[in-house]
């Protein structure tokens, strides 16, 4: 999947991936896609739930060698 921006959350635990995602998404444009790379398994459930609560679109997770690549699309107003 192609992303407009990437944030590195390797080595970070809850709530930091969520905090960093929220901050980054705020800076991004509507409809843009953010990729979050994390290694805390918690993101597998936290990210879709965060997206649902904030109205952003959860596009999916790609898992690879203990790393999770999460894709979130910023909502359009």
């Amino acid at each position: 999947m192609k992303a407009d921006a990437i944030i590195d959350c390797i080595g970070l635990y809850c709530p930091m991936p969520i905090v960093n995602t929220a901050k980054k998404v705020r800076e991004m444009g509507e409809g843009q896609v953010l990729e979050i790379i994390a290694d805390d398994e918690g993101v597998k459930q936290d990210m879709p739930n965060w997206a649902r609560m904030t109205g952003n679109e959860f596009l999916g997770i790609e898992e690879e060698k203990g790393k999770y690549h999460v894709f979130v699309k910023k909502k359009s107003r």
Partner: protein
Amino acid sequence: MADKEKMTLIMFSGEMDKVLAAFNIAIGGASSGMDVTMFFTFWGLNVIKKNEGSIKSKGIMRNMLNYMNRGGAKRLPLSKFHMAGAGKAMMQRLMKDINFPQVDELMRIAKELGVKFIACTTTMGMMGITKDAFITEVDSFAGVATYIAVARESKINLFI
């Protein structure tokens, strides 16, 4: 967003582990678009006290209490295995190992995300703590009616 969902937390405890959990939840809520308010009361007031300087109050009992119960985000003990600070130091090292922020850092993040801090004036009066004992990040000083007014509109309300 005009009407954000609300979360309130009653910060009754002044122990590092409980405070970490509370800020974790507050930050999670604020990051998920919620309007978060934290009411600090009783031992919880220790979290928002300044780390520097001494706390002056009237009377021997109040002065003694404030000497023993100094507070400050960096001074909070653990609720378990504190071991005169040795346990706390070890816990802080474990936190560092996983890049988990310390209490003062979590407070900074919470403020950055717009979390409101309210201090309980009744406890302040009882314990003889004045406004200048607190960090400037405290938004207001109020009582139970202010808490109820926000809590009754909150979807999440926790007592920690």
